[in-house]
C-alpha cells in the first residue's frame, strides 16, 4: 500500500484528507505541523507528501526545503495544499521543490486523481 504523509495544523482538514485518501486505498500518516511532518518523514520514507503552507512553527515551504535536502526525499512528490493562490508564493513553492500546488478547498475525487497520477 502506498503511504501519504498529510501535514496540516487543522485537525478537521487532516481528518478529511485522511478519509478521502484512505477511501481511495492509500495509507495515511498525519502530522500537525512542519516540524512534526519532518520528524515523521524521517521515521518512514513515504510515497507522497501533502502539506499546508501556513502552520505554526515550521511552514510548508520550510518543510519542503528540509525534505528536499534529504537524500530519500529528492524524488518523492510533494504537493502543497493551501488557501493561498498567489503567483509569488507558488513560484516560491516551485523553487523550494514542490511538485504541485492545490488550492483549498479540495475535492476528494480531484485530489485522488492527482495523487494517482503521481504515485499510482
Amino acid at each position, binding site marked *: 500500500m502506498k503511504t501519504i504523509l498529510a501535514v496540516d495544523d487543522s485537525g478537521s482538514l487532516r*481528518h478529511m484528507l485522511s478519509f478521502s485518501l484512505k477511501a481511495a486505498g492509500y495509507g495515511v500518516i498525519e502530522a500537525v505541523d512542519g516540524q512534526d511532518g519532518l520528524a515523521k518523514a524521517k521515521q518512514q520514507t513515504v510515497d507522497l507528501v501533502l502539506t499546508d503552507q501556513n502552520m505554526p512553527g515550521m511552514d510548508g515551504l520550510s518543510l519542503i526545503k528540509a525534505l528536499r535536502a534529504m537524500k530519500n526525499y529528492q524524488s518523492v512528490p510533494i504537493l502543497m495544499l493551501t488557501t493561498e493562490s498567489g503567483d509569488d508564493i507558488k513560484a516560491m513553492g516551485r523553487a523550494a521543490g514542490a511538485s504541485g500546488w492545490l488550492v483549498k478547498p479540495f475535492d476528494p475525487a480531484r485530489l485522488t486523481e*492527482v495523487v494517482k497520477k503521481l504515485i499510482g
Partner: protein
Amino acid sequence: MRPQETPSGEAMNTPVMRLLSGMSVHGDQHLAEVEQDLVQMGVLLDEAIKKLCASFMAIHQAVALQQEALNGMHAAGDEAARFAAIHAEIDRHIGAAVTGLQFQDMTSQLIRRMALHLAGLRDVFGMLNTRTNGSPILPESGSDEILAMLNQIGDQVGHGAGRAGGVRSTVNQRHMESGDIELF
C-alpha cells in the same frame, strides 16, 4: 469669541484627557467582548465540524458496507446497475460535503487574523490608559505633550497592522468550490 473667553491650554487638556481615558476604557471593553465572541465562535465551529466529519464518515462507511452486502446478494443485471448508480451518486454527495466542510479551516484562519487585529487595537487603548513606572503616560498638562502622545499612538496603530502576525490575508476564497490544481 473674545480672547478672554478662550479656555486656556491647561483647562482644555483636562477634558481632553478625560475623553481619551473614557474612550480607551469603553473601547477596550467592546474589544474584549468581540474577542470573547470570536473565541466562542471558534470553539463552536471546531466542535460542529468534528461532529459533521464523524457523521459523514460514518454515513460513507455504512453505505460502503451496504454496497458490499448488496454485491453479495448477486442482484440481477439491472438491479446491480441501479445499486451501483445509487452508490456513485452518494459518493458524489459525500465528496461535495467534504469540500464544503473545509469552511472551518478557512474561517479559523480568518478568526485568528481578526484576533490579532483586535489585540493590536487593545494595545493602543492600553497605551491611552496605562501608567508605567509610576509616571502617567497621559500628560497632566501641555498641548504639546498630548499631541506627542497622540502621535505616538498613531504610529502604534500603523505598526499594529504589521505586528499582528504579518496580517497579510491568506484566505481569498469567495466561494466553497474546489480550488485550482497545478502540477509543476
